[in-house]
């Protein structure tokens, strides 16, 4: 048994099998046992991972001459040895069948929408038009942070949020509002550090003002249910609700890189 396991061919198969099980099931089901959120790996990523591992295995078995010869031996035997005729025939049948099956799966028509590459934070335009007023986004700061009392702005933002946003983004700001389950992609979860802490306030302003339909193509505007709030809110209300979002979640907005050079 020990000698079987040390054979490169068996080792290669074992590594591939373990890697597959790990990527296919391990990533999805082991972390939840430890209380970490996870989900199944999409099949494209699974394929990419398996290819990488396969290349690694190939390099491993061919890195030294002895190992490479030992690895090739069973393959060569199946291909030429008269005693292996049955295996050879089985291979000759299964390989084309497998290829045919894969081809069939790929060309079979399906009513499912094609997968699309949705960029969550697409590049914002350099300027936007807000109710006839042109705003330059690069270097734009939240004007309310420099005037008046911050608490007042937070309260104003709270009012705006609970009148307009709560239905989707939820009263815990975690994107689990009453309507949330109906949307795919789901509403943004502001408590996640992948959302607003990665963004400048001007970016958030753009997303609120222009909504889903204002996304560029890579953001798949047809998928987003976010309304364009410029039709319903004033500029000050949007800035106030942004202050509320950051205040309530405890995140700080991304700041502009103010080192030398500077934005145009």
């Amino acid at each position, binding site marked *: 048994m020990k000698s079987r396991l040390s054979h490169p061919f068996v080792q290669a198969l074992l590594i591939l099998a373990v890697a597959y099980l790990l990527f296919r099931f391990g*990533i999805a089901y082991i972390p939840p046992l430890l209380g970490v*959120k996870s989900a199944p790996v999409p*099949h494209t990523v699974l394929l990419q991972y398996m290819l990488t591992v396969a290349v690694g295995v190939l390099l491993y078995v061919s*890195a*030294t001459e002895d190992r490479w010869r030992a690895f090739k031996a069973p393959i060569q035997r199946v291909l030429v040895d008269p005693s292996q005729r049955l295996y050879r025939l089985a291979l000759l049948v299964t390989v084309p069948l497998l290829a045919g099956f894969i081809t069939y799966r790929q060309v079979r028509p399906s009513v499912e929408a094609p997968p699309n590459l949705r960029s969550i*934070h697409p590049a914002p335009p350099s300027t936007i038009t807000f109710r006839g007023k042109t705003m330059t986004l690069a270097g734009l700061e939240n004007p309310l942070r420099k005037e008046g009392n911050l608490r007042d702005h937070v309260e104003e933002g709270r009012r705006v949020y609970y009148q307009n946003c709560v239905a989707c983004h939820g009263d815990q700001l975690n994107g689990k509002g009453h309507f949330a389950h109906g949307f795919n992609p789901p509403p943004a979860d502001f408590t996640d550090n992948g959302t607003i802490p990665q963004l400048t306030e001007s970016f958030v302003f753009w997303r609120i003002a222009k909504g889903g339909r204002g996304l560029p193509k*890579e953001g798949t505007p047809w998928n987003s249910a976010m309304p364009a709030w410029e039709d319903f809110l004033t500029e000050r209300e949007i800035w106030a609700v942004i202050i509320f979002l950051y205040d309530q979640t405890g995140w700080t907005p991304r700041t502009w890189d103010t080192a030398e050079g500077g934005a145009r």
Partner: protein
Amino acid sequence: MTPESRVSFPRLAGFGGLVLLMLGAVAVPAFAQQAAAARDYGNFPLVGGRGAIWIAAEVHLMFAAFVLGVPLFAVTVEAIGIFGTDKRYDKLAKEFTRLLLIAYSATAIWGAILVFFLSTLYPKFWTYMSTIFHVSMWVYVGLFFFESFTLYLYYYGWESLKDGIRKKIHLGLGVLLNLWGTAVMFIADSWLSYMMSPPPQVSTDTAPETIRLWSAMANATWMPINIHRLIANVVFGGSIVGAYAAYRFLAARTDEERAHYDWMGYVGNFIAISSLLILPFAGYWLGREIYQYDQGMGITMMGGFMSWLWIIQAFLIGVLFLAGNYYLWVGMARIPGAERFTPYTRWILGVLVLGVLVWSTPHTMIASRAEQAAMGGSHHPLLGFLGVMSAKNTAVNLMILSTFLSYLLYRRANKRPSVSWARAATRVQAALFAISAAIVIFFGVYGYFVTAIVRIGFSVYQVLSVIVTIVTVLVLDVLMLRGAESRGAIRWGQMPARSQYALLVLAVTFTWLMGLMGFARSGIRQHWHVWNVMRDTSPWAATPALGYASKMISVCVLIFLALIAIVFWLGGLVEKSTYAPPAAAGAERAPERELAIAGGAD
């Protein structure tokens, strides 16, 4: 493959096209005068105006990178030959230079094609650029003239400037050749970096006559691009030379030839990989300048429609790392005493594969609706953490460390250190590796808990710790192995063929990667000829998706490789082989010792 039969057609077509172009260039100005206002863009059959420019510029750039990169290390190799004792290096330098001579005219031909295409297909843009840059264009031509004649003198004077002080003069010629070449590249870079980052005071309404030449040249991305290209040229030249050696190795008939080209391939690969290790830092500088120049352009590059390009880049660089290490591991079979290190290679391989897995994990995953619903969006709740820069920087720094470790094992394989403190020094080296890896991982993990601005600063610490480790370990190693006794000579030429295919894959991947990164750099301007200054109003203004771009890149790479195959074949006609039997004593140790000095720069 018989090169003459395979490539004669494209060659003929190329020359035919050139003749037609020259005729066209004569004919065009005559009617262009009346039609100038009406015709901003020309058209080109089959691939369109942009496609024609794309191919001309990319193939020109590949040849240019080759003829700028090869002299850099031809001179270095010649210097090693002069100051060391090994005659093989001088022969090697001359063989490089001979390849250069033919590649040089190919560069010039493609440069001419590019200029003619620009002036006939993009006349308005060409007028704009030449209005600003005409003086630098004249200087460029002059420098090119000097460069050519220095090259001729360098190559044809090789034998007559062979002895004593004359050899030093010859070396000086080589240095001069590189100075001309670098100056030429800097000037050309100023044009294209102006297109990316014109000075802030230039706007759509600025008349080109009023823009001062120097302010246009010294723009934000000029220097980063210069440095990035300088290093990349060396990487590229080294890998092409490695491929040349691999080809000659596979075609070799005698053991002597095989030994020579095995060694040449090793040198080429060494130069390519060791320069590759510093390339990411130059690239990082360029990226940072782009971000500082215009945040929007930076986001377009990293997060916008180009974000997937970086996954492909990670995939290609993963191939480079794996193939480069693999070549070293397989090569250890020809070094006596290397057996004691082979068990370690599997762990290095493990780290590299993990690094590739992490580095190429996309942030936004391609998923069907059902998979997206399960993930709660297009970000995976767990793997999403691997998709951000913190994880990727950590992975790439660990991969650099692993590659360096592979090289260190290779270097030490047939040595037995004779100094008393060797054991202690080895422990220090191991500790340095461990500390550096710990620093890289610490900042990688800590990066998730801080704001973006702080996190960007972390990558500097990671890079610094890796550089410090590499330099210190290498210095220690050089001191420690001084006067070390040999466990046996390297058996040059006793290399399985698959290692040579790894060299070929390296060269093809480098070339393709260069095309891809060229697309990225040029594509982030999107629908602007000159960013936010001159708009592209041609039918080709939209920036294509990666699929189309990859086909164009493949076409460019194939044209380049086919032409370079002719160059190699012609080089073989001039002189069958430059193989010279090595001096029996001391030769087997020489390459490693000298190259350690060459490698000390990183």
